[in-house]
């Protein structure tokens, strides 16, 4: 049993290690993470991708799960991929927009 308490900030920090290799930006600043639910040592992440049919689909979802399981205090991780609402550049952080040159207009 793991005694470390997981925080949303720690989860986000871990997810910043998952990079979309086509755009060259981490999935947090890219705005792909919609929700994080922490129940004890289980973390559930709800996320999307920039487009349906994205060839990076499994790499990114699998990478999110690995990043979560690699976090101290996490014993179980679940990733849920959703398409609604669809991703839009307005969901990116300022850091992400600045790093990638993606525009919102």
């Amino acid at each position, binding site marked *: 049993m793991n005694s470390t308490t997981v925080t949303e900030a720690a989860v986000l920090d871990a997810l910043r290690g998952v990079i979309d290799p086509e755009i060259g930006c981490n999935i947090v600043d890219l705005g792909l993470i919609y929700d994080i639910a922490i129940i004890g040592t289980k973390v559930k992440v709800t996320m999307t991708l920039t487009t349906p049919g994205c060839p990076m689909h*499994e790499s990114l979802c699998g990478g999110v799960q690995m990043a979560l399981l690699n976090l101290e205090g996490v014993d179980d991780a679940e990733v849920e991929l959703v398409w609604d609402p669809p991703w839009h550049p307005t*969901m990116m952080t300022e850091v992400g927009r600045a790093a990638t040159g993606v525009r919102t207009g």
Partner: protein
Amino acid sequence: MREASAAAPRVVQPVAVGSSTTAVLRTANAPLVTLPLRFIVTGLLALFTGIGWLIARPDILATYHYNQYVIAVTHLFALGWLCSVVMGAMYQLVPVALETRLYSERLAKWQFAFHLVGFVGMVWMFWTWNMKQVGHFGSVMAVSVGLFVYNLVRTLARVPKWNVTATAIAAALGWITFTIVAGLAIAASKCVYDSETGLATAVGVSTVVGGLRAVARFIARFDQISAMHAHAHLSGVGFFTLLIVGVSYKLIPMFTLSELQNKRRAALSVALLNIGLVGSFLTILMRSPWKIAFALVIVGALAIYGWELRAILRARKRANLDRGLKYFLTAVGLLAPLSLLSLILTWPSLPLNAFTGQLENLYGFLGFIGVVTFAIIGMLYKIVPFLAWFGVYSRHVGLAKVPSLGDMYSVRLQVLGYWSFLCGLAVTSGGIVLSSNTIVRTGCGLLALSAATLAINVVKILSHFAQPRIIPLATTKSTRTSPK
């Protein structure tokens, strides 16, 4: 948490992501990366051979094209380079882009073997002008195309949401089938069937030979050069151009973070391309003055395609286009001079002389090398890094820092390849028009430089299989490590 979470997402497609760290070289939909890679590497070898061949024999482009050497080199480029890469890429892209699963990887592996034997034998026999053996190796190629088409038709049958890209791919599969049938018929028409009487007792064989003789008699009704031109258009417009148009309606929005802007406009461009090609094939074959009308239909289709592509690009969210996309979009832009040339060459009162013969050479060169080759090189800069990245790094995501796709090759070399290709294209085009061996050889030298940059970059990309660049993340649990 952040602004996006306030939108209360509705779950529409939960994805089961296992906790296993088993090494994988495939996505759920696409095949093993080694399958498309073997086609792509074969295609690249054919490209380098073809350009080397043109440097050694510039007269192939600098003189009129109805001879065995031009036909051999054309098939090396069309089957060895373009078809190899396109087939490999389609095995990877069609399942991913259309959100389905490849029907059979085993069939695809068999198809590769038939394809390799078929195109190498065909090119060799065209060079020696042994049409009987061209027919035999062409039959092997027909088996290859048959397996390819069957596999993809079964794959398309599983597509959950039919769209303009799926329609274009389905039509292109029909046209490549027709291309190979037409090519075999032309080969049959050039054979001598003096052995038929000696086969009278072997009923099955004599029936086949009798059938081939009947095909030969039918094809002999048409002008031989016109039949060859009609056959070339089936592949150039029906297979390669239609695929470029259809696939880009999916990939350009994906790479530029944009969307298809007008589905009707996109569908109209694909429909007109098909209608124009039916008419072009028949009017070219029959040397009809009406071929300009159908050329205009195809040019109209390409104009509508350009209009939609421009709208997609204007709506894009990624301000900067990477060099691979610039290759592709420049190739699409080259459709404009190619279209103009097609209208000149279909002009009803155009005299047939040495100069217009060279314009026909230029048309074929601009089509297969200018447009299709440049577009495919651009897409290779997307596909090959992805295949290598997926094969090497996919299982390390989240556990280690891995390179992005753009880190896997030299952008400087890519830029050098871009400009040397365009210069090579311009110089070779000039050499073709002027019938100058020296200028053609110089232009092909520049194309070889561009091909060399591509080769170095492909080696750089594939070197990640041997030497992965993985930096473990600092936050890694002591009990869990990145998989070997």
